[in-house]
């Protein structure tokens, strides 16, 4: 089967401005969402307690809510279904430092008389740990981006690195915007998803850049936008198909992987779509706008080659001289 067949380059770069406007709009909307509505921090980052209760029959959610909020300490508690009608999650900002008596025990007492149930999960995160995790999380994101920036500049050229990192920031920002928009709870696994997006979205960008690098060296053309069009079109099947396979598995994870990792899989799902789009329509135009000059690059490469050849020559001469 073949979906994409290369005939002639698709003139994408001539429409680069439109994609640029679309991307900038999306990023701005995302930033606005992040700064106005803000993240719905989950337990890991906000601290508090979460109790998951499984009922034998349908959980009587109103009764549960009444039973818990009757206790003054838990007036702020929220009760929601989790995954199915038998399962509820009780969230409260209260956290207890005591080892002897914990929230699970308290909830078990409060819920007496609401039916046959089993407390299946009690997670408690103290406020201090929460803020520590948040700091560490932000640090991880920054470090990962830095690491990638350094690696790509080392392997390609600084303009490639800047373009790919800008595409990455674009992806992560939009993914975060989606997380805010759909009110997905932000926990440690959301952070893991964001870091995976960083690594993953870059894969596609690198496939394209690798081809552009090759095109610059071998193509007869010196106009960068033409080389980019050529390379993007040639790699279109690759970027789309690799994303597709990963998209399949993340989709199954989202649909069947259970409620607990839904935040993770949702973030990834958005990230993969945006990441694929950005490697084709965002990273390459940025490279063009950064003023990458094919001529200069070739001259540099030629010089490098010349120098190496000279070195070899010298070495050969030297070896001959000593032998």
């Amino acid at each position, binding site marked *: 089967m*073949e979906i994409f067949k290369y005939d002639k380059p698709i003139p994408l770069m001539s429409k680069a401005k439109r994609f640029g406007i679309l991307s900038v709009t999306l990023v701005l909307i995302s930033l606005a969402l992040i700064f106005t509505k803000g993240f719905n921090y989950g337990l890991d980052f906000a601290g508090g307690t979460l109790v998951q209760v499984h009922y034998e029959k349908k959980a009587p959610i109103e009764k549960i809510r009444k039973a818990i909020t009757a206790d003054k300490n838990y007036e702020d508690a929220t009760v929601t279904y989790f995954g199915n009608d038998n399962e509820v999650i009780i969230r409260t900002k209260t956290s207890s430092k005591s080892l002897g008596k914990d929230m699970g025990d308290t909830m078990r007492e409060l819920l007496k008389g609401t039916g046959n149930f089993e407390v299946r999960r009690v*997670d408690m995160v103290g406020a201090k*740990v929460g803020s520590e995790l948040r700091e560490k999380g932000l640090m991880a994101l920054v470090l990962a981006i830095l690491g990638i920036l350094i*690696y790509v500049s080392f392997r390609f050229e600084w303009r490639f690195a800047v373009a790919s990192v800008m595409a990455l920031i674009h992806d992560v920002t939009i993914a975060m915007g989606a997380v805010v928009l759909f009110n997905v709870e932000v926990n440690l696994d959301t952070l893991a998803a964001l870091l*995976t997006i960083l*690594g993953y979205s870059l894969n596609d960008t690198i496939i394209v850049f690798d081809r552009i690098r090759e095109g610059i060296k071998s193509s007869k053309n010196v106009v960068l936008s033409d080389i980019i069009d050529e390379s993007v079109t040639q790699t279109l099947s690759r970027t789309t*198909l*690799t994303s597709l396979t990963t998209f399949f*598995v993340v989709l199954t994870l989202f649909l069947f992987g259970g409620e607990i990792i839904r935040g993770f899989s949702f973030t990834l799902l958005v990230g993969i779509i945006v990441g694929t789009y950005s490697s084709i329509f965002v990273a390459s135009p940025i490279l063009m706008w950064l003023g990458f000059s094919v001529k200069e690059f070739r001259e540099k490469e030629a010089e490098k080659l010349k120098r190496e050849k000279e070195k070899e020559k010298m070495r050969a001469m030297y070896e001959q001289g000593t032998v």
Partner: protein
Amino acid sequence: MKTLNFRLVLFLFALIFGVVFSIPSLTQSESGKKITLGLDLQGGLHMLLGVKSDVAIESRTKSIAASVKYLFDDADIIYDDLRIAGEGVVTFELLDKDDVAKATALLRKEIPGTVLTHNGLKFTLKMTPEEIVRTKKDAIKQAVDTIRNRLNEFGLAEPTVARQGEDKILVEVPGIKTQADEQRIRELIARAAHLQLMAVDEDRAARVGTMSPNEARSYGDVILPDVYNEAHKYLLRAIPVLDGSMLTDAKVGFDKNNEPVINFTLNGQGAKIFGDFTAKAVGKRMAVVLDNKVYSAPVIRERIGGGRVQISGNFKLEEAHDLAIALRSGALLAPVYVMEKRSVGPSLGADNIKASSLALALGFILVVLFMVLYYGMAGVIADVALVGNLFLILAIMSLFGATLTLPGMAGIVLTVGMAVDANVIINERIRELLHEGKSVAKSIEEGYDKAFTAILDANVTTLIAAVVLWAYGTGPLKGFALTMGIGILASMLTAIVGTHGIYQWLLPKIDKKRLGFWFGIKTEGKK
């Protein structure tokens, strides 16, 4: 057909290695190294505990005061007004000028880590700053050891107790079956098990009901409640006769009414102090105090030698058993508190395994089918490599005894999607070269050659993200980073080297007229 080539042999070795070492994990056999399931998959308790190390200084100060009292009594030095004047500070007054030299020498020798100063006959004994730091550090280390001992004695499978950062303790206890068990474990960990034998201040005991804590302090006393009746108070001398540090053993026994009691034995020094004290205090009461609650306060009838003491209370057998463990493993010098706690019931763990296995299987099948549909035989080859990759991940994790968590499962699912990416890139390259009219052999070799840099760069960047996540992640997240990292490295071997070997081995069979079957493309009549 060409003979086996180097790449294929390497891949076959990797495959055999993968299958052999993942068998113990897959069959969950008793022997052999295998993957442990994370707490989120098998259920269990995860806690991050903080240590109130200031309290360790407090109790060290108390024990210094107790030592001063014991040393002076033993050496017949007369003193007055021995009291705890602050954190790490003990003050007292000597009555006889001639005792100054003797007392100074005695204290300097017997109580290290302190500085003794005096102003006339008023003395101040102060812990040095280094001693305070050391005491705090010791308290944390001791808490780790004590909690570990307690959990080990409780008889649970493989609890983890480790220090995390400067002053935190990570406790992980897998395989807890019931809520009641979890509660017992939490109480066992939390128990300070701070045992003190204290003298009742008989002179003022009658006034305890109306006395304020401040007034009690002014006499060098402390008011403590009865364990079963909070309203019932005892007035006790603040500096204990001795404490649990001199205890050598604690066992559950039964008294004459067949009620469970705890018998404990004191070491030589403890037995001597206890004997001396009881000889002097006949007719008075002595309180057995555990964690600042009075368990009993019997009247001393005669000198008690041998260092055997009994704690009675209305214990349940279970309670007495846990208490004996706590006493045996030593007191916690500093109390611990919960900073983070996650507990997963076994049924939820089983649900998590079910859901993520389903997702893994479905995702795997989807990818495998897609590859075959889209690439024909080339897809089959990629799928073989994918299976090899899965086994390799399991084998490497088994060998390291790594922990598989729920995010770890997600990591494997994700790796399945990413591992075939390499093959997609390679196959697309090969197709491209075939379209250009190159021969099959040349297309394959050149395809691998050209695809390599892109795959390498892509994998390294993903690896960078995985490493950062591993370094900054905690618990389950580390598991995700680990499986993803191993998966990427393994895919370099299976998806690049392995499939290349298979192509080279199959090359003589590849019919250039049947490129549709082999590579899923229509031939255009070119050679």
